[in-house]
């Protein structure tokens, strides 16, 4: 029994590795894709970093506020990188018309999701490292000075990227590649509600419940608490973690339902169209 379970586990790990290897082989041959990983985070860092420095130099912002802007942009870009790493890896299968082969292989849907999460983490690491390094070199801002809590902040935002991407992928499965534009727009739509650069209390009262339903709003409240010395931010992170679990479960159920609907409606046969 235990031997059978171990064998099944190793089989699953090998299938996940197959997909990760497929994407690593692709990136090895495509430097524009690698460049794209770091482009967004670095660009945003430069814009917000110089804005913060300008405001600080003209008395419009304290050093603390400047740090908040830079930390905010770094963390929010991590959420974006996570979401893009997941959903663009899925789109690569559609673009290369390879998805049909994958769906008729022994790859289980949850193994596909696991492989996309691994790719998301790799993209997050590859994309964020240059921006974090630049923040230190250009603005003397060391995000790791916040302590171990920073890893939890990143982890929660990465998890948010996964469930947002899972929802988008479910939508693409059901409605075809015509919905792929959502990959680049959904997270931007969530930015105002995520309270990246301002507290949730700055939002109109009607929007606050929506903001509190997002893990990102709790993460950034936690960040502000940690930066201002007003707390460790762990309470906010606990809320974010709980919300991420709920959203991840909801999107996994949505993915399963939409995959079933796509198989029933024949959408998988013509997904690239």
């Amino acid at each position, binding site marked *: 029994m235990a031997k059978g379970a171990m064998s099944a586990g190793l*089989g699953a790990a*090998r*299938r996940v*590795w*197959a*997909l990760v*290897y*497929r994407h690593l*082989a*692709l990136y090895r*041959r*495509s430097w524009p894709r690698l460049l794209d990983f770091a482009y967004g985070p670095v660009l945003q860092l430069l814009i917000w970093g110089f804005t913060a420095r300008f405001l600080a130099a003209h008395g419009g912002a304290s050093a603390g506020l400047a740090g908040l802007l830079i930390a905010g942009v770094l963390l929010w870009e991590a959420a974006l990188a996570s979401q893009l790493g997941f959903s663009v890896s899925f789109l*690569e299968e559609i673009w*290369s*018309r*390879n998805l*049909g*082969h*994958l*769906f*008729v*292989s*022994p*790859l*289980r849907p949850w193994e596909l999701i696991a492989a996309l999460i691994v790719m998301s983490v790799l993209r997050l690491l590859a994309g964020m490292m240059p921006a974090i390094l630049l923040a230190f070199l250009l603005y003397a801002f060391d995000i790791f000075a916040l302590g171990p809590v920073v890893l939890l902040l990143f982890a929660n935002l990465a998890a948010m990227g996964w469930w947002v991407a899972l929802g988008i992928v479910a939508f693409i499965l059901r409605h075809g590649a015509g919905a792929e534009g959502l990959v680049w727009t959904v997270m931007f739509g969530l930015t105002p509600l995520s309270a990246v650069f301002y507290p949730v209390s700055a939002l109109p009262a009607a929007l606050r419940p929506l903001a509190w339903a997002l893990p990102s709003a709790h993460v950034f409240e936690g960040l502000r608490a940690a930066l201002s010395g007003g707390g460790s931010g762990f309470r906010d992170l606990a809320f974010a973690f709980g919300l991420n679990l709920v959203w991840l479960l909801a999107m996994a159920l949505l993915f399963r339902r939409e995959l*079933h609907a796509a*198989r*029933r*409606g*024949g959408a*998988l*046969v013509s997904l690239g169209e």
Partner: protein
Amino acid sequence: MAAIRVEGLSKRYGPVTAVAGISFTVAAGEIVALLGANGAGKTTTLAMLLGLVLPSAGRIEILGHDMARDRFAALARMNFASPYIALPARLSVAENLRVYGHLYGVAGLERRIRELAGELDLLAFLDRPAGTLSAGQKTRLALAKALINRPAVLLLDEPTASLDPDTADRLRAWLAAYRAASGCAILLASHNMAEVERLSDQVLMLRQGAIVARGSPAALCGQFGRDTLEAVFLAIARATW
């Protein structure tokens, strides 16, 4: 035990019936061809056998596994090739085969890749990106992918489409030899009547989603009073019943 057993298989998309209650079996070591005009239901039938499309009714059993309940056990022991589903173009031939070798849990993968590449004349192209291959080389790569796990059931959609006569002929000879050596059950959809006559033990003629005739190529020619399978095909496709 039949390698493939299909009973009362139907697929409806709203008011359109793509497949209308077909039943057939494919024995181990047998090659069965699905023939029919465009829209006759060949691709939908293959897609249901592969688990890509859910049937509206009926039952599919492959290698003893019910595809509705246990499809991954069956999928691990079957494979599929089609010129209409590509492999990643930027990955090399070896990388593509490695990906699918891992997906199918192939033991001794590097040895298997070299073995298949040797048999299918792909050794010189192992490091070439798949997108730079000729049509014939791509078809051989698709077949190598389909054989990477030594499948007991092989589904082929137009296996020689877009190949020159020489390459197509060599591929057919190779498929016949593979079937003889491995005992693999092969279900192929094709529009190439010469190919079907040469390779198939049984032919299923589809029209508007239903099987309207079945038998060996020779038996079908006799049944319809025609000299060739192509003439039988035309008679069925143009019939007004």
